[in-house]
């Protein structure tokens, strides 16, 4: 029995709440502030977990299911990624579709939970969330097509495991474009600048934050943790494409993953401090640009 997939899964699940902290801290430092400590999210989660919950009189069971689904789907999706650079906890042909669908299920339940409150703000956020997702999804799948083409495998383990390092010399330009497109999808899927601003304080301008406006206590903690894991997953995808680690010893591979995740989080912080948020109707253009990038990568590989 090979324990490495489980060990790396545990590492990522433990490390995940650090990433939003790193991003926020980087942003604060670059904009001349001190900022919250990087481990802030751990304290927030601990605090929220101890608190009570207030439910709206309008809500039904779907509102309570959504936070659970957010965390559970993120963890299951993490099981499908080869986090140690070799193999995943669970791997089968076509598991990349399961990966995307699990994340989509989390989005679906969260959006329904938002609409469950009957609040206009949350309806607005829900509407924006599904709009942006409809542009991020093709970009993600175009990246997957490029990776399938480059490695000849239909599973995430096959794609990001061994063959990718052999594909790099021949397909470097495409793989760089894929990594860039994946990073853009990461920004969109995790509600980061330039698509959304996690630091905004006005409900009207929020996207993801406003959907969870009525969640409180442990429910909110589950949602926050689920989003942190999701950020780590997309980070691991980017790292997996850029740094294939199948030839490294296991410990080194994990160290590279951890360093890579922190670097991605810091990069998110850099993007947040050098870019303004896009106007809402420009966001689709940003994501279409990401899709176009991935599309070019696919075309280069197909020819």
């Amino acid at each position, binding site marked *: 029995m090979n324990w490495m997939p489980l060990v790396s899964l545990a590492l990522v699940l433990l490390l995940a709440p650090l990433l939003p902290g790193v991003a926020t801290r980087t942003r604060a430092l670059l904009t001349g502030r001190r900022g919250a400590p990087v481990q802030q999210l751990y304290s927030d989660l601990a605090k929220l977990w101890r608190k009570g919950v207030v439910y709206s009189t309008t809500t039904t069971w779907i509102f309570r299911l959504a936070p659970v689904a957010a965390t559970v789907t993120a963890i299951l999706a993490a099981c499908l990624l080869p986090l140690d650079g070799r193999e995943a906890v669970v791997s*089968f042909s076509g598991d990349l579709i399961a990966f995307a669908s699990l994340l989509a299920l989390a989005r679906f339940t969260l959006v329904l939970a938002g609409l469950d409150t009957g609040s206009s703000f949350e309806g607005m956020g829900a509407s924006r969330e599904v709009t942006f997702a409809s542009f991020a999804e093709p970009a993600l799948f175009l990246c997957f097509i490029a990776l399938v083409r480059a490695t000849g495998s239909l599973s995430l383990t096959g794609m990001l495991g061994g063959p990718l390092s052999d594909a790099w010399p021949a397909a470097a330009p495409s793989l760089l474009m894929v990594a860039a497109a994946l990073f853009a999808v990461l920004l969109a899927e995790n509600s980061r600048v330039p698509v959304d601003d996690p630091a905004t304080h006005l409900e009207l301008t929020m996207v993801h934050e406003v959907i969870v406006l009525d969640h409180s206590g442990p*429910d909110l903690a589950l949602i926050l943790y689920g989003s942190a894991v999701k950020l780590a997953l997309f980070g691991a995808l980017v790292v997996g494409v850029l740094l294939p680690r199948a030839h490294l010893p296991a410990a080194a591979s994990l160290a590279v993953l951890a360093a890579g995740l922190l670097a991605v989080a810091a990069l998110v912080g850099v993007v947040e401090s050098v870019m303004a948020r896009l106007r809402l109707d420009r966001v689709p253009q940003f994501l279409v640009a990401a899709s176009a990038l991935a*599309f070019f990568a696919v075309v280069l590989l197909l020819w």
Partner: protein
Amino acid sequence: MSPFFIGLGLILAGGVAASRSGALFRLLVPSGCIIGSLPAFRVLAGGTPREVIVSGHVPGGPWVLGIDALSAWFLLIVFGVGGAVTLYGVSYLGHGHHSARAARSHLLLSLLLVSIALVVTAAAAVPFLMAWELMAIWGYLLIMYESEQPDVRQAGLLYLIVTHTATLMLFALFALWGAYARDLSFTALAAAGPKLPAEGAAVLTLALLGFGLKAGIIPLHFWLPEAHAAAPSHVSAVFSGVMIKTGIYGLLRVLLLLGGAPAWWGWTVLSLGVVSGVLGVLWALTQHDLKRLLAYHSVENIGIILLGIGAGTLGMTYRYPAVALLGFAGAALHTLNHALFKSLLFLGAGAVVDATGTRDIERLGGLARRMPVTWAAFLVGSVAIVGLPPLNGFVSEWVTYQALLAGATLDGPIRLQALAVAGLAVVGALALACFAKVCGIVFLGQPRTPEAWSAEEAKRGMLLPLVLLALACAFIGLAPSAAVGASVAIAARVAGVGAGAMPRHLIAAAQLTGWTSAGLVLLLALVALGRSRRRARRQPRQPTWRCGYTYGEPRMQYTASSFAAPLIAAYQPIAGVRVERNALAFRSHPIDLVLDGGVRPLWHGLRWTAERLRPIQQGRLALYLLYVVATVILLLLLSCAGGAG
């Protein structure tokens, strides 16, 4: 085959008995469906296909009925959905003072089920066309249930014209094909396949047009939303779940008999799949009428099925049996899954319409509390149609995705089919948006109108089929290997290769998706249970946060129009919507770009021309004689001119 005929007899008997007692109808038709599907199960389990030759000495050769794997699969769909729907129909139409009309509708429904069953078992062109035409006519009469309403009559007329156009195409198809064959039985046609000129280009084009009209492929879909919205909900369920699938059956049967198709046909089907999928879901998103919205989703799902058929055909053409099997298996499985979850959704929509008296999404809301079972079933259907785990829609989309992605691992032209994956991803994301809209606006939040306030849970007779269909969706999602295995067997029949060409790991992988889904359900249940135990101590309830304001009205909630607005704005040129925006209101009115933009103007143009030509026809003999003389003189002059030259 005899259980099949006993089943058909029971269904017909049930239909006739409906005028006496609804209970007898409810008993006889579902039991007929169960008995009738026994031979289908036997064939799918590996039994030998059976044939019955009904009559030997008629024009067009013998009338053959037979059940092979492909027929068996569609027979299961017909009888499965048909049984659930008849259970529902009695309660749905049962009340009110239209009992004679309801009994007529029940009889027509059983006739429709019998003719569809004959369509998918006919193994010769003549019985096939007869059953096809009967199916079309019963369908028309079923649409006309509320014939006093003008829009129902209009939808019926449109359906009648379109379905006859489709039948005409099929007559042409079999006439062309039959000219090269000994007789019109399917075995003779299959033998004549290689003799067809241009690799059967004419036959394949006619099949795409004729069967495409029935299946509702864009741009031939324009009759479908009208007809589905006009018919009673359980009839819409049969239309969407079963009847339009006969178009898919036809395409697969023609492919099977021809033994493949040229590459251009595969690429055409693949492109039509992307177009139908994306435009179907986009146009669904703009709808505010619950049943029209579901009807447009049928167009979308036909698009997904076509993606599978396209990939399968290309796999056959370019000789990659594994791709062919994956493609056809995805198409077959999605056909079954769509039949299950779409009939579930239509029946759920029917329960909503029955409880509130409106199909307008904007006038509903908060039904989750009032109709908890309907809501749970509708949610299952929604998650399934969006293609999310742990339900059946995910399984078939997973197979279809793999068929398309497998192209990327190969060389030669087939590698380009991987680009269709992006289309499928757009379809999935837009479907998620659309069903978030439906579930959220119809079932969640607060009721927007008094009708929605006073809604009550549907009757038990309507809930039972909903629960059964939801369980079927969950079963295929959680234990997919049997369904995937059966669909691979059908794909092997269509593609004409052994199922051994299948990559062996597919079934194992299907089992793993099942385990993933089961793990998902288990974890969800465990964590949710843990949360609810912890929560038991204290649970304050407050109104939803309204930014510090204390008032709030249900009308202030987000509407379906505003929910869909950003997406529609982003896709504006092809979204087909007219937006009305002023200081007080925001409304969007959906228009069908094909029907309102193409077919209606064309029809009006024809009519206008015909009216301009009317003065020629005066009905006076002298005038007609004058025409004759004038024509003769003209012809003489022409021939003189020709002779001189």
